[in-house]
């Protein structure tokens, strides 16, 4: 168990280090941010000073070493645009993004699993066909368009819900539904197919032969088996939702990490982009790690 954890921690560190390296070079190779940040008619001295201030006058490899040294300390420099600590800006936005992603994840699980279970149990019935149709449609609708449509219907036409902004539960509704749609479809589909597999198993026949009621067979004996692969999918989906949140946050002006990243990318505010990327890679690898642990915990056949 301990061996496994240590091995995974080392792997995680390597991956994050490589990820940072890749993004650093990508961004630096794409051009000098000074040109973009200063007005074109600024005097050359001002350019010089700006470069010095942000370390852009150093050779690339020295910039890289400095960058790695600093990022280990959690220092990604100051935001070029705002002048405050880049990491600070990122950390400030993380709760909002997490709120959105976690609510969407919870919503998808709560909706999708019953749909999948019922679909599988009533295979080929009308309910099943409706469920399958819904999942196929749900997977084909891009989330940003769904967001626009929801805004049009609920904010513009019926004036029921706010079109954007953050702060209250009311504001959370539309972005959550938008973000959750794809996951609902994905989970429902997966739950259905996994349940269909499980319901064919010999041990389900054993449970029937013991006189177990159908509900209990479905919700206890079959679902727990289906949940093991499903759990992996669900926890990995959190990462996907964090990525998808970038777009949804822009659509709904949600004050999260995604919007900050978009703004920073548009303005070539690289310290903020790097800090944001660092955080997302960190969260992503952490989720992977937790998923593996979780899998080992729920599956009695695996002993680490």
């Amino acid at each position, binding site marked *: 168990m301990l061996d496994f954890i240590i091995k995974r921690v080392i792997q995680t560190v390597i991956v994050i280090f490589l990820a940072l390296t890749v993004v650093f070079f990508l961004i630096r190779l794409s051009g000098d941010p000074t040109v973009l940040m200063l007005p074109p008619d600024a005097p050359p001295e001002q350019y010089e000073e700006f470069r010095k201030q942000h370390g852009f006058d150093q050779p690339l490899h020295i910039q890289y070493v400095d960058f790695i040294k600093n990022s280990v300390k959690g220092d990604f420099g100051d935001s070029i645009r705002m002048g405050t600590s880049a990491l600070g800006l990122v950390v400030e936005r993380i709760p909002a993004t997490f709120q959105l992603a976690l609510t969407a994840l919870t919503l998808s699980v709560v909706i999708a699993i019953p749909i999948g279970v019922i679909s599988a149990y009533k295979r080929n019935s009308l309910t099943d066909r409706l469920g399958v149709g819904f999942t196929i449609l749900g997977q084909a609708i891009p989330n940003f368009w769904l967001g626009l449509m929801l805004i049009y219907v609920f904010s513009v036409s019926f004036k029921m819900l706010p079109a954007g902004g953050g702060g209250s539960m009311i504001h959370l509704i539309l972005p959550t539904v938008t973000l959750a749609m794809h996951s609902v479809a994905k989970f429902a589909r997966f739950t259905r197919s996994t349940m269909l597999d499980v319901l064919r198993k010999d041990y389900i026949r054993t*449970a029937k*032969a013991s006189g*177990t009621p159908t509900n209990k067979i479905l919700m206890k004996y079959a679902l727990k088996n289906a949940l*093991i692969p499903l759990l992996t999918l669900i926890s990995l989906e959190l990462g996907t939702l964090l990525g998808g949140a970038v777009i949804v946050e822009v659509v709904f002006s949600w004050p999260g990490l995604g919007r900050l990243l978009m703004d920073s990318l548009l303005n070539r505010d690289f310290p903020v982009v790097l800090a944001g990327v660092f955080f997302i890679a960190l969260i992503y690898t952490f989720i992977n790690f937790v998923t593996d642990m979780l899998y080992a915990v729920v599956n009695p056949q695996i002993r680490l």
Partner: protein
Amino acid sequence: MSTKQPLLEIRNLDVSFRTQNDPLRIVHGLSLTLEQGETIGIVGESGSGKSVTSLAVMGLLPQPTGFISNGEILLDGRKISGLKEKEMRKLRGNEISMIFQEPMTSLNPVFTIGDQLSEPLKQHTKLSKKERKARIIEILKTVGIPRPEQIIHEYPHQLSGGMRQRIMISLAMLAEPKLLIADEPTTALDVTIQAQILDLIRRINKKKNTSVMLITHDLGVVAEICDKVAVMYAGEIVEYTDVRTLFDKPLHPYTQGLIASMPNMNERKGELHSIPGNVPRPTELPTGCHFSTRCTFAMDRCHKEAPPTISSGNNHTVSCWLHAIEQKEEPLEMEEENNVRHAITS
């Protein structure tokens, strides 16, 4: 005799499966009776419909495709075929239990043995949690599971195949059923374990007076523990009698073939006899006698008309034209008969 109620009575049972075209009849005109405490063997090659018969008795035919298209099944004189699922559920694991061929996959991998064993008790008794545990440990001891107090906290994958089959048997026996159906209970196990499991089934049968319906392709197993035998071929019973008569005087050519193809422990035969060909698929049944395509004694008539079921005294019935025509020839050769005797006495 006639006033006594048999425990299980199957009358003229047809089981069919829905297909894209017409429903396909898998079992046809099957009748048998089983008294309390009796053991019946149902023998046949794979595809003969023996497992389907057992699932029909359990009310576990695959849904929604399988159904009983004719006939009835009675348990203790009560008609159980066509019962509502809810009523049937009260019988399963309670009055009728079943153990399956595959001990490796028949237990749920993500629940402990104790969890799974407490299920029939939860469904059919009002025992408290503590009483359930005591009962489970008791039954595990009777089926010969060592250190049952620990085993109940373990998962199926931690146990061997033989152990798992013992667990399956204890699962079936928990509610002390009147009828135990065992579908190829030893096929997936090693030879030494096979003997132990058969011995266990026999002991349960003797001690609790539980009736046993044993589904197998192996006549050796039948010889070991059964009182009577039904030989099935292509969905029908072709010969039905008590075990001694079957081995002493098999009448149907198919039964004779099965007996001849038994490996003999005592005598080394040069080669094993085998019946050429396979059981025909339900879609491709030959007209007349279904066995006619593989039968060495097949006559013209066999290919045209279905044979009648002939009674040849003391509860021995056979469906074969050979015996409808006053048994003028003795089909069994002496040499084979000797081997059969050896097989039984050994």
